């Protein structure tokens, strides 16, 4: 009887576990395995090369580290501007304003759109010759500002970073708003009775209570933005001249462009390790600052 009961229970989780085993765990193990081979994905024979893929990435692959730097740059812009914007908007909406639900609805529209749609629409708006932005700049008398936003090596990466912020601030906004709304109003009332002005209550009530939320948003931003790439595919394809290359795009290129499956896996492992380290550092930092 007990055995029948237990078997029944297992049946409930069987579909999930089976799918998970086949489509997550096995590939997970293979990543580490394949990282040590040189393989084009088609031939039945793989060449075991040990750690040479990793060595090549760490010592020779300049484009890889350029892509890392690019991702870091985009992430930095996101952490600073995207989240600052999200926070300011959340502060603005936290007060008793009439159209709060409307703004909440609108601000989250960019995040629900696909990266492909966002990338292609903005590519059209930012087009060097016929894009709305440049046409409008010329019209208001600033033609010197009308650059080839996505094809000029000087502006491409920042342009991509800005569009990424446009798409992403809605997330931070929602989370910050949720966090702000958990702060009890009585604290602000009490502070006002005690004679505090707006800046005082912000500094002594809002900021300390929002630190954990801010750290959460920061961790999510870093993890998400470092791995971003579809938006970049849609906007620039990684160019001009590798100026908008990012790590995951390099992995995709190793697989589809150079047909080096083992190398692509090695890149994935190194990138994954870097992300884990960054998250860990952020997490430890958050634990320390919670001793507030």
């Amino acid at each position: 009887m007990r055995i029948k009961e237990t078997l029944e229970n297992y049946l409930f989780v069987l579909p999930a576990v089976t799918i998970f085993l086949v489509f997550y765990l096995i590939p997970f193990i293979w990543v580490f395995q394949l990282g040590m081979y040189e393989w084009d994905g088609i031939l039945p024979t793989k060449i075991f090369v040990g750690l040479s893929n990793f060595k090549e990435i760490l010592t020779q692959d300049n484009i890889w580290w350029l892509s890392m730097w690019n991702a870091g740059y985009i992430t930095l812009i996101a952490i600073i501007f995207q989240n600052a914007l999200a926070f300011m908007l959340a502060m603005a909406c936290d007060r008793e304003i009439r159209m709060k639900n409307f703004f909440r609805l609108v601000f989250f529209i960019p995040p629900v759109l696909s990266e492909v749609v966002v990338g292609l629409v903005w590519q059209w708006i930012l087009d060097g010759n016929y894009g709305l932005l440049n046409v409008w700049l010329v019209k208001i008398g600033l033609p010197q500002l009308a650059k080839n936003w996505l094809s000029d090596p000087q502006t491409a990466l920042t342009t991509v970073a800005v569009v990424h912020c446009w798409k992403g601030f809605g997330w931070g906004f929602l989370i910050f708003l949720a966090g702000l709304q958990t702060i009890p109003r009585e604290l602000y009332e009490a502070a006002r009775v005690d004679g505090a002005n707006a800046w005082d209550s912000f500094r002594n009530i809002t900021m300390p209570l929002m630190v954990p939320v801010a750290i959460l948003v920061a961790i999510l931003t870093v993890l998400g933005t470092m791995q971003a790439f579809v938006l970049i595919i849609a906007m620039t394809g990684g160019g001009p001249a590798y100026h908008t290359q990012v790590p995951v795009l390099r992995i995709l290129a190793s697989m589809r462009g150079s047909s080096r499956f083992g190398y692509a896996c090695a890149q994935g492992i190194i990138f994954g390790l870097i992300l884990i380290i960054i998250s860990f550092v952020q997490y430890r930092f958050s634990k320390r600052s919670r001793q507030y």
Partner: protein
Amino acid sequence: MKSDKYYRSKKVAVNVIVYAFLIAVALTCIFPLLWMFSSSLKTQETIFKDMSLIPKEFHFENYILAWKEGGFGRNFLNSIVYTSVVVFGIVVVSSLAAYAFSRFTFPGRNLIFYVFMAAMMIPIPGSFVPLYVLLNKLHLRNTAIGYILCMINVGLSTSIFLLKTFFDKMPKELEDAARIDGCSKLGIWRHVALPLAKPVLAVVVVLNALNVWNEYVLALIIFDSKPLMPLQVALMTFQGEFITRYPLLMAGLTITALPIILVYIFMQKYIVKGVTQGALVG
């Protein structure tokens, strides 16, 4: 002492600035979509010259052209099919598993659950590489079922987490009553647990539908033949082929974005809940 009038006019000034700020940002969110739609109604000749938001002529036939000639009709159907099947699959598979994690005891239960949770939080960049190899081996590449199974896996962990959290809080009386009445475990799952879980199921459905509809990478590496591609991949392929047929591309983009926007507007409540709950896990 500052006069009452000073405080009142200061408050009005602050409100004006705040509102202006909010409205400005809201405009930047909506305007690109309006421009996309407006561009889709122009022709190949006028789109590079007519820079007004409301086009001089409305060329709705661009949508027919994009649907038929551009092939987006077929891709739209694919997206609908993939999204529906994957969402249905996830609902069934994850609710069964979540119910078991919440209500049953069996050896390894906690371990298996934690593995699912760990998978949700550990990023594996480039996981599509071994997935490609796997699908090749299973002869599932360039097949709908291969893509569907992959996408079911993608949404499993989060959905299981959301549902288990709900089931844990669900009062047991109704299930006990059903069991006393002789209902089987599966029957209880189907007739008691699932109906009660409707709000969470709505979140699961909406979040996963969004993910599948917007997904690009896996579809890119799995599908070779255009008639099987979902919209996102088809759009990028179209852009590569017909790099100058902007009105049709814009029409295709509108066709792709419109369902999402509609679903979002109607199901906004569930999306917000899902996002904030999912974020609280991390």
